[in-house]
């Protein structure tokens, strides 16, 4: 997206929202074993990912980035395959998707963005790495190592923190000393911005500015999008054990999808709903017919070529599987 397009942002957010709801429903129906809902974070995810230039940028996410995947045009079926327990990294091709494989190590990918950006710099591609991480992840040593290194080498990295208020049961106040991830940036001599993470346009503009800055050789920056995880941490989590209903209600008022819709005409919204419903149908169908990977896949991707030991183990596996 070259400039902020409120209608298109809303359309993408609505797709993410409806797909998220569908995934939760499928989980309740026993069709998906477990799921990590992104409800409430659509503006942060879509707004930022839509600002990327997919011909040269690259995004590094974790496990709650459906909105980013949608905005990047990743096939949601291939993305959700990770949650279906079919393949850890999802079934999309990360090179085409411009999105690193689904990754469950909190904070584990942030340094990858730094390395990737160094590669892009050496290749003079003008590509920028967008690194998604949470408020919880901000406590990890890797995030510090990444910011320090990116700042020293003036690399094109946008450190994008989705501060959704919670890391499972731990609130930001007991996670982020000082209260602001964006404020950490100053310690590395780089810019840090807080942005209303439920305002897709604001997120888009902040991200675009940071991307442009990086593209122009201005180096890395930190964006902290203040948002809220409206649902449970995962489908096996019960937020009632650790947070107040009033808090959830207060944030429900700030629902980013509703907010994006409020600027649009009724028929635009209706069109978006139709589009999302159609997408949900397609994805649901895709998910329900998605086959498990064959057992051989266990052995196929460990190395570029299976070792002799793996050939032998595959043979043994086949014998038992055949029996």
């Amino acid at each position, binding site marked *: 997206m070259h400039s902020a397009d409120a209608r298109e942002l809303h359309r993408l957010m609505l797709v993410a929202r409806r797909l998220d709801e569908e995934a939760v429903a499928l989980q309740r129906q026993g069709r998906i074993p477990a799921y990590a809902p992104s409800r409430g974070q659509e503006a942060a995810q879509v707004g930022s990912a839509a600002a990327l230039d997919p011909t040269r940028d690259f995004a590094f996410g974790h496990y709650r980035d459906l909105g980013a995947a949608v905005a990047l045009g990743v096939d949601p079926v291939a993305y959700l395959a990770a949650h279906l327990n079919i393949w*850890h990294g999802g079934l999309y091709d990360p090179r085409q998707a411009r999105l690193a494989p689904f990754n469950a*190590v909190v904070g584990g990918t942030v340094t990858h963005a730094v390395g990737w950006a160094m590669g892009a710099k050496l290749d003079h591609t003008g590509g920028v790495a967008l690194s998604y991480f949470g408020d919880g992840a901000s406590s990890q040593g890797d995030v510090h190592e990444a910011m320090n290194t990116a700042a020293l080498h003036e690399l094109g990295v946008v450190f994008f923190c989705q501060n959704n208020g919670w890391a*499972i049961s*731990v609130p930001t106040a007991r996670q982020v000393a000082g209260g602001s991830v964006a404020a950490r940036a100053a310690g590395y001599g780089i810019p840090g911005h807080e942005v209303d993470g439920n305002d897709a346009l604001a997120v888009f503009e902040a991200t675009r500015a940071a991307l442009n800055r990086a593209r122009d050789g201005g180096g890395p920056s930190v964006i902290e999008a203040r948002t809220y995880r409206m649902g449970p941490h995962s489908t096996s989590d019960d937020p009632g*054990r650790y947070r107040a209903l009033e808090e959830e209600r207060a944030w429900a008022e700030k629902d980013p999808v509703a907010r994006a819709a409020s600027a649009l005409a009724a028929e635009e919204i209706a069109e978006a709903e139709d589009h999302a419903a159609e997408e949900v149908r397609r994805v649901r169908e895709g998910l329900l017919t998605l086959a498990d990977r064959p*057992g051989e896949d*266990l052995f196929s991707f460990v190395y570029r070529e299976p070792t002799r*030991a*793996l050939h032998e183990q595959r043979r043994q596996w086949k014998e*038992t599987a055949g029996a």
Partner: protein
Amino acid sequence: MPEMSLQQSLNLALRHACEDDDRVLIFGEDVGRLGGVFRVTDGLQDKFGEHRVFDTPLAESGIMGMAVGLAMAGWRPVPEIQFDGFSYPAIDQIVNQVARMHYRSRGALPMPITLRLPSFGGIRAPEHHGESLESLFAHVPGLKVVAPSAPDEGYHLLRQAIVDPDPVIFMEPKARYWHRGTVDPAEHADRPPVGTSRVVRPGRHATLVAWGAMVARCLRVAELAAEDGVELEVLDLRWLKPIDAEGLAASVARTRRAVVVHEAPLTAGLGAEISALVTERCFGELRAPVQRVTGYDVPYPSGALEDEYLPSVDRILTAVQTTLEYRRG
């Protein structure tokens, strides 16, 4: 005797440990208010207060570093790392600091730390939530490593680990959290010492060696084999460091055949150590090489392929057959 799940017996053990010794501290990600993602620390913060049971920031290395400092200050830390695969960020602290501080300080600074680590696979969890790190930990001088296989074992071994003056990695088999069994806390006084294995089922044709969730699987195999008149001895190793070499040797000297079963990949897994130990001690008695039934040398797979990866009853039975039919080549 009360019946309860492993998850409950561990909770009870923590409760009793906190009551017995007010230097015991419990901390980690989500262990406080939430009571742990597996509810093993459920209710403990309410009972013992926020200063003894508390949530940490999301930083595994920091958690273990904090445990080191607390131990230096005379506390008895029982940290949790939420899942096996997330102990890697803490390995530097575990290996370079926890395991060596006592040695480095010539005994001045003991490290009576018990790291609770929900471990192993079998629950169709996401990546990094099904790892078996026992051979890594068992290789590290200064650490002790233990894995319970049942609720009563969980209770007693956890209490034993906490009072132990050395650092213990306590590997909880997630797949067994919800399995129930009787637990008698009163038996605790009669526990065998650290480093003792137990024969869960006696037999004379071959010894199955296992720990954690694989013990139940081996018992199942033994039942099936018994239908064919094959009497398998099932040995629950329990302590993966120090290993009960004498107990192992005593069993295999009787049965003359051994199969070791674990979830971790084959190469350099703890099964290799068991195989080597048994062979060193029972070379004359062994009628066949020790068989290893393990995970394959591949990353722990996604849920859909988990059953293909883990040692199955069939694979174990096949290995039993191999060892029974073995003829010196």
